[in-house]
């Protein structure tokens, strides 16, 4: 079932109202530089130092960035977005700090305001630049550090800050809490689905995302159908259902940790062996790669993206699907946070093959796929709207070049960005969710 575009446009309007809802930050102007430096100092390890030392300023990273490719504006050169970090390193942690303190100026507050735009509005932390750099400089990893530093200095853009503050103070995202979750669950139960909620013990803890509750209802329905079809011992938990982590997106570690801990605590309590992340791109690295580090010890359960989970079931022969896609030519967009940052490439492709579609690859795919343009919270940053549109135009050209009839992805954030682009340009290719397609293809 296609997304109701009127509901989607209403959601977009809500997103545009976010900056007005943001509360002022606690960090006084005079303390911002010190707050940024404190994070830099804590986060620079030998890996980061190696990256900063290895850069030869060749500019190849620019050629990998969708924002540079689309605009030709050198300001968007990925390594340039790290200038305050580089300057701090050279002046205060590098091997010749005594020398650089004499010849290089210090970070100033005006720098931070300028770099806020570069680090938040025009970077999706997609990591394509890290994969293009011949020196192996992990720029995306350092952009995360930049965001943490700016967040510590209270410089998160207003739209993103509003959602981070909501999640930090109320535990909800876009107003979705346990009550709204249960309304969605009841709607599914009315339609005859068994939806286990708040079970004491379960092998699998399934998370969902606000966007699935507000917009992509079929994704949640499909997830329920798939779990029940596989006969999995699973549950959703009203205290720990939200996969989205706006602490991570904004760079505000306190909120990131709290959001992760809520899930980890519940997963451990109910004895889950697996935690399944919905089609919410950043929720995957937030739990899969950062969860244990935030928690302070290895997680006693496995973390899987829903596309990864379904793919493994298909690959292991445990899930057969009806070939509903016969004669359909489709292409798959690898969500950056699940693919390039997570290594989930083969599983979604195995699912598509099981659906019987004619799968064609984008000109740039897998670890070199171009980002949707809305990741890392850009979708809720109003000042980034122009850049998101540019990224969509690039993706649109690539999809059209394949001759695919539809674009399939496994990330709500990508889907939102593509839907916004589709709506703006009246593009005729449907944007589809992998999990929704699987829901339609389950054997009777």
């Amino acid at each position: 079932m296609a997304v109701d575009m009127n509901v989607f446009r209403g959601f977009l309007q809500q997103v545009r109202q976010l900056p007005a809802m943001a509360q002022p930050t606690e960090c006084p102007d005079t303390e911002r530089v010190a707050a940024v430096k404190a994070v830099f100092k804590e986060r620079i390890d030998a890996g980061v130092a190696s990256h900063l030392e290895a850069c030869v300023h060749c500019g190849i990273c620019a050629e990998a960035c969708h924002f540079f490719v689309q605009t030709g504006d050198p300001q968007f050169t990925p390594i340039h977005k790290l200038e305050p970090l580089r300057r701090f390193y050279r002046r205060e942690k590098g091997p010749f700090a005594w020398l650089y303190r004499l010849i290089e100026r210090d970070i100033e507050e005006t720098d931070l305001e300028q770099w806020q735009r570069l680090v938040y509005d025009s970077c999706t932390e997609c990591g394509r630049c890290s994969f293009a750099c011949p020196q192996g400089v992990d720029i995306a990893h350092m952009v995360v550090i930049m965001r943490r530093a700016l967040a510590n200095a209270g410089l998160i853009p207003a739209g993103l800050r509003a959602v981070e503050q909501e999640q930090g103070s109320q535990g909800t995202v876009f107003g979705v809490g346990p009550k709204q979750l249960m309304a969605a669950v009841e709607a599914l139960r009315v339609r005859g689905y068994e939806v286990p909620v708040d079970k004491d013990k379960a092998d699998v803890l399934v998370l969902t995302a606000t966007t699935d509750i507000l917009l992509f209802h079929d994704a949640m329905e499909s997830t329920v159908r798939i779990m029940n079809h596989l006969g999995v011992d699973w549950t959703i938990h009203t205290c720990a259902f939200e996969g989205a982590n706006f602490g991570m997106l904004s760079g505000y570690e306190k909120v990131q940790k709290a959001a992760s801990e809520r899930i980890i605590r519940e997963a451990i309590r109910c004895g889950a062996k697996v935690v399944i992340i919905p089609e919410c791109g950043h929720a995957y690295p937030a739990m899969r790669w950062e969860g244990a580090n935030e928690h302070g010890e290895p997680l006693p359960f496995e973390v899987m993206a829903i596309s990864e989970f379904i793919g493994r079931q298909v690959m292991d022969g445990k899930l057969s699907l009806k070939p509903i896609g016969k004669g359909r030519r489709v292409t798959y967009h690898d969500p950056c946070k699940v693919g390039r940052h997570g290594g989930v490439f083969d599983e979604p492709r195995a699912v598509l093959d099981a659906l019987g579609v004619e799968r064609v690859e984008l000109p740039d795919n897998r670890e070199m796929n171009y980002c949707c343009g809305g990741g890392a919270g850009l979708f809720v940053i109003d000042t980034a709207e122009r850049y998101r549109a540019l990224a969509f135009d690039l993706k649109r050209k690539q999809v059209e070049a394949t001759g695919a009839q539809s674009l399939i992805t496994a990330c709500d954030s990508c889907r939102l960005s593509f839907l916004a682009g589709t709506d703006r340009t009246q593009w005729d290719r449907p944007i589809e969710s992998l999990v929704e397609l699987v829901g339609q293809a389950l054997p009777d």
Partner: protein
Amino acid sequence: MTVTEFVDGPLWYFALAVFFLGIAWRLVVILANGWRGDLSRPRRSGLTGSVRALFSRFAPAPGIGRRIGLHLTGGYLFHLGLFALLLFAAPHVAFYAERLSLPAWQPMPHWAFVLVSELAFIGLMLLWLNRVLNPVTRLISSTGDHLSSILTFLVMLSGCLALEQAHEPLRVLHFFLVEVLMIYFPFSSLMHAFTFVLSREALGYRYGRRGVPV
């Protein structure tokens, strides 16, 4: 003490000391930052990723090559040419045997030297022109980057002029410029000749354990 004696003697030893101690110091300070551990459950081996990244990055990433033709041409010509000259130019082979007591090996013939030098010069010029003319590299390049290019150019130029070894002053000039470059090296981005290994290793380890081909 004559200029020649100074360049061949004390300055050479000073340059050697700064070169090796500077490199060691810089690497030690980088590594002294320690490593933040990663408690996440790896999908694959980080070590395999490290080894892979060390070599895979010599080739452009898929889909990127078509956008960086100038970087690729200039980069390969310059670096391959430079290493060929450093290792196989006849005067260098003789120098290593005489001053560093290394066993002599077969040098490249004169025609090959001329060809390789020209290609290396073309590569260096392409890279430097790109640095000066491309708006991206103009924005991100530092004075140090330009200084590195100019010094390398002068060393190569003086080396070509001194090739015949007919004019002692030219050999001394070349040797002097090499020493200046060696002293400058640890303080500059020329250190990427060593730090690229650490950087690729770190990247390869991080993404290798995530199961992403780096």
